[in-house]
């Protein structure tokens, strides 16, 4: 072993020398710089990877001066030897990083300990766990059990490839909803096919639990803190508390990220004995799906991306996407006769509501079972509630009334809205999983706090810098370039978080096999929002090569605002 490592180090040095040779003379100082870093890298494998990178860097730089490439590389025997060296070094680097996967994928069946089961549904569910390595760089160092549920269709086509359902969040629980999905959604997403639900690592019923009390603690911020500044500071404290909790429990954030989840899913696929599958990805799940598509395209038959959430950098800020969706609501109210009559200037009503809450926050008592006994509603907390409501057509329908109630300081009318939103807030995510995954995925979250300025006042949740003193970014999520996999992207025109520009950006990179369908009057989660969206998913999964019939899209009605 020692001989091998010594050999690796010598190879690294040779590679670095080759890189120096390849770089044009004017970059000699850079060549030295790259080479000398080797002396400061103690681990031999890391040194070899560094040196391989130097070779790549030097060719990259060289190839930007194309005339000289041919002369040096092909007329000079040393150049040809250099190319062979590059191939050899790359091959060895792959071998040296220990890629032999000794992990044997296996599905361990368990009883279904799930809510809302009935005999007909239980008969269709197969529950169990798949074990994956905690840390892919050290496969021997501990494992995680992922919760998996396979939903069989009522009538199964044995030839049909199953559908993998990738949930949002990151961190939204999925397998716990298996019974409801089996009753109401599986026929849409996976007619005559198996539908596979997986809780990604750190989410739902999968290991590990990441700061399970965090969401309640965050709700407490709204209950106890009186000013936006205090709420913002308290919000950040909840994450610092989570950071300490993870450290105490020996949970390393570096185990997380979209790239890790994708590797897990490959193990799940093999554990279930599935040669090829389809994916329905929703919201954050689209980021996982597109990364899987980039890395393992041969395992995929077709992919649906519903409400597309791309890797960094996002083309629009969250402030911008929220503002656009809110404007769309105001516009829709103007165009709806009964809304326009009830709210002649909803935009002004919203502004006045926010100003009023800024001057004097409204304290609302909530009924038992709401998760908290009171909420201190300032402008930022109210905006967070409006944002949540914008995701969802039924809530969107009631938003003008909710805005009016905030304006009028009508606590009685606001109460049921808030109680409902709080339930959503508490149950739809694991914020611990969300923060570690987003910090690993998004270098943009490393930057120091920015003085972002939403038009209507400071944001409540300033995530800038949360990651910086805690979690370094890992390998990023990916968008496939010129994909060979038929891919359908669904996007709602009034989505407050993943609007159409995101889908269009991803589709442009994916190329001709990717098709975007934009739905007017629809927000987040197209398949859930409109039967037309659902029918397109069914149609596409059935025949991914056929042209998509989008006739129903023109029939989607505006939300009936009340």
């Amino acid at each position, binding site marked *: 072993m020692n001989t091998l490592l010594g050999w690796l180090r010598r190879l690294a040095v040779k590679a670095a020398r080759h890189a120096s040779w390849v770089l044009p003379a004017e*970059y000699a*100082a*850079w060549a030295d*710089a790259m080479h*000398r*870093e080797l*002396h*400061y*890298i103690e681990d031999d494998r890391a040194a070899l*990877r*560094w*040196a*391989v*990178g*130097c*070779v790549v*860097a030097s060719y990259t*730089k060289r190839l930007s001066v194309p005339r000289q490439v041919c002369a040096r590389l092909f007329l000079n025997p040393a150049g040809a030897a250099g190319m062979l060296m590059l191939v050899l070094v790359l091959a060895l680097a792959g071998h040296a990083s220990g890629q032999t996967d000794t992990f044997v994928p296996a599905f361990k069946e368990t009883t279904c300990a799930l809510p809302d089961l009935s005999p007909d549904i239980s008969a269709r569910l197969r529950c169990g766990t798949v074990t994956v390595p905690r840390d892919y760089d050290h496969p021997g160092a501990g494992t995680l059990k992922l919760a998996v549920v396979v939903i069989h269709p009522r009538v199964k086509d044995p030839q049909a490839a199953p559908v993998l359902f990738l*949930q*949002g*969040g990151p*961190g939204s629980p999925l397998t716990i*909803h298996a019974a409801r999905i089996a009753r109401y959604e599986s026929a849409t997403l996976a007619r005559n096919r198996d539908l596979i639900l997986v809780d990604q690592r750190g989410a739902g019923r999968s290991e590990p639990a990441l700061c399970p009390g965090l969401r309640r603690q965050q709700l407490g911020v709204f209950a106890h803190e009186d000013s936006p500044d205090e709420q913002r500071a308290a919000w950040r404290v909840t994450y610092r508390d989570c950071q300490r909790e993870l450290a105490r429990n020996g949970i390393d954030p570096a185990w997380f990220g979209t790239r890790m989840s994708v590797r897990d899913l490959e193990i799940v696929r093999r554990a279930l004995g599935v040669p090829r599958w389809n994916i329905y990805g929703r*919201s*954050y799940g689209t980021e996982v799906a597109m990364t899987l598509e980039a890395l393992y395209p041969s395992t995929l038959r077709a992919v649906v991306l519903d409400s597309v*959430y791309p*890797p*960094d*950098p996002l083309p*629009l*800020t*969250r*402030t911008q996407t929220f503002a656009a969706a809110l404007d769309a609501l105001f516009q829709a109210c103007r165009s709806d006769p009964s809304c326009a009559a009830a709210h002649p200037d909803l935009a002004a009503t919203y502004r006045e509501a926010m100003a009023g809450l800024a001057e004097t926050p409204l304290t609302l008592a909530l009924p038992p079972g709401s998760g908290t006994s009171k909420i201190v509603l300032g402008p930022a907390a109210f905006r*967070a509630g409006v*944002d949540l409501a914008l995701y*969802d057509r039924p*809530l969107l329908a009631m938003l003008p009334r909710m805005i009016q109630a905030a304006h009028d300081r009508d606590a009685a009318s606001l109460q049921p809205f808030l109680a409902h939103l709080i339930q959503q*807030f508490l149950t*739809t995510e694991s914020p611990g999983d*969300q923060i570690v995954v987003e910090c690993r995925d998004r*270098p*943009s*979250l*490393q*930057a*120091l706090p*920015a003085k*972002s*300025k*939403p038009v209507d006042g400071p*944001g409540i*949740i300033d*995530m*800038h810098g949360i990651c*910086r003193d805690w979690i*370094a*970014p890992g390998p*990023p999520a990916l968008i496939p370039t010129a994909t060979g996999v038929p891919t359908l992207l669904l996007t709602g025109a009034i989505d407050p978080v993943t609007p159409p520009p995101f889908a269009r950006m991803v589709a442009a990179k994916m190329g001709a096999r990717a098709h975007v369908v934009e739905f007017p009057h629809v927000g*987040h*989660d197209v398949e859930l929002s409109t039967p037309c969206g659902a029918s397109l998913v069914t149609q596409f999964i059935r025949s991914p090569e056929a042209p998509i019939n989008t006739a129903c899209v023109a029939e989607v009605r505006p939300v009936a605002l009340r």
Partner: protein
Amino acid sequence: MPRRPNNSRQARALLATLLEQSPLWRHGYGLAKATGLKSGTLYPLLMRLSEQGLLESRWQDAERPGLPPRHFYRLSAAGVALACEQKQSDAAADLIIPPGVLA
């Protein structure tokens, strides 16, 4: 949309990392670790930023004897200005509630 210079994900990550530590000097290996970029991506970027006058570099003697001098980098004034500009537009992190599913 036409490609703006220094607007790739990698370039933005590098600029943001350099801005954080500005005006301290950083070495290549440290930048690779902080940004997650491999040397093959990092160095062409550093070279380009230097050519554009956005990056300063200098040699520093090793702290321990027997080791060669090492190359260190930091943003120039122009580089700081560009990185700040990019950070303003990165108010993407002012997430209200990041994407989830209201299922």
